[in-house]
């Protein structure tokens, strides 16, 4: 669930923009600059993943995957989240751009925290990785819901009711998200374990870039 335009007070809207611009700049700095196009392509995959609906009783929920994005992308996750939100606006999935900053904070900050959490605690064994991944997935959604509620509550006492309802509506999503994240991380640990290392982070030696490429070697 995203915040739509015109809901938040102006100060929060503008503050959200400033904070997410700073975080995006930090995130871009932490990503090796020549891999930014890769982050863009991977973001597309996360975007598609977030379109998948999972039945929940009579209705269905769709995944938010800030936890998974954080676990797989590390510090680049904030960039990916901002990009994904911009794409949603372009692709008629969502409304306007005035709430973009607040929405990026709401999904991006949990993604960053989950990334650190996952990389610190993932350990070596597969079962541990899936458990930590599951916790990261649930944690990511829970934090996103909490930030959503806090942002809404910033509007004043009139908004408290809406904030509570929004928080409650996320409880099933948190559980589903946790389970799916655990299974997905387990799958990746079996199939392509190198994806669980932070791929794009600057300084980290990604498995795909074993041979240093020289940009001047072209043409």
């Amino acid at each position, binding site marked *: 669930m995203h915040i739509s335009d015109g809901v938040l007070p102006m100060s929060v809207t503008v503050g959200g923009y400033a904070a997410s611009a700073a975080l995006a700049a930090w995130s871009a700095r932490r990503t090796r600059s020549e891999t930014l196009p890769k982050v863009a392509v991977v973001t597309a995959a996360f975007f598609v993943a977030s379109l998948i609906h999972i039945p929940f009783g009579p209705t269905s929920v769709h995944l938010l995957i800030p936890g998974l994005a954080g676990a797989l992308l590390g510090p680049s996750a904030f960039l990916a989240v901002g990009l994904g939100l911009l794409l949603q606006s372009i692709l008629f999935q969502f409304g306007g751009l005035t709430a973009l900053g607040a929405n990026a904070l709401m999904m991006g900050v949990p993604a960053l925290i989950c990334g650190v959490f996952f990389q610190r605690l993932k350990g070596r064994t597969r079962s541990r990785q899936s458990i930590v991944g599951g916790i990261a997935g649930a944690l990511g959604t829970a934090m996103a819901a909490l930030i959503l509620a806090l942002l809404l509550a910033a509007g004043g006492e*009139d908004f408290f009711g809406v904030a509570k309802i929004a928080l409650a509506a996320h409880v099933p999503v948190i559980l589903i998200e946790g389970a799916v994240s655990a*299974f997905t991380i387990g799958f990746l640990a079996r199939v392509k374990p190198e994806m669980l290392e932070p791929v794009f982070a600057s300084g980290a030696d990604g498995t795909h870039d074993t041979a240093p490429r020289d940009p001047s070697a072209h043409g």
Partner: protein
Amino acid sequence: MADVVHIVLPAWQFAAILAGPLILLAAAAAGLRFLVRRRSVSGEDRDWSVPPLADSAGATLFHRWDVRCKITALLAYSFLVAALEHVTPTLAALAVSLLALVLARSSLVRALTRLLAVTGFLVMFLVVMPLSAPALPGDTVLVIDGVDWLGFNLRGLYKALAIACKGVAIALLMEPLLTTAPLPVTLHGLTRLGIPDMVGQMVLLSHRYLHVFRHEAERMAAGMRVRGFRKRTDIETLRAVANFLGMLFVRSFERTERVFDAMRARGYRGRFPAPEEPRMQAKDLLLTGAWLALGITLILWDRFFQQGSG
């Protein structure tokens, strides 16, 4: 200070006041969804290359407007609208957005899709806020005869209405902003306005590969359906969906490597060729000025001539 005005209603009237708009909204949402679904299913053979965002090189006001001016004007205007507080000016903003849609000859289906995307969130406000807003002095609260824990606060309703109008008005305005020029042109306009070049490039790449990966996901989903997979509310569904996600990530990460290598092989050095250089004319600036003036008028109206209501 005036006290809270309680208007006591019999239960059936209260229920009618609550349920009437809800039923109307639900019906509208269902109708919208039906319309959008029907339109999108009818094309059996879908084009999975990048669907062009821009409509025909239309000759409307918005198509001819210089893209930098268009972005500046419409974004600044959106922020001004987001700052409105009273119902009447937000209704006017909604009317302006509808007018802009008509002027830009935007696709009705896409406008409806956008509307559908924000409906859920805004309906939550319309339902929850009147019931949960605390009663302040001067408020009018409708209460059921004998039930005093549930009150329908009219001030909450006005506030929610204003929020809903703002949300819809801004969401609809994205249609003339984003689809009256090809995406590369719009992004280039952003770059010219000072947004880092890389942002535009990343959006362009993501947008391109989004459709590739969606195609991939559709094929994988079709394969699962053929093998008898049906989504249910159980742990096995979650496991299957998780494996599906994992496979999608593995395939797309691998494809990412190949895409990037191919780009490097074709001489990519952090830049895409720029689309044709836009030329700003006096009438572009004039239109921008007029649009901003409209936004400022709305804000002034909202702040100085709307005391008391809403």
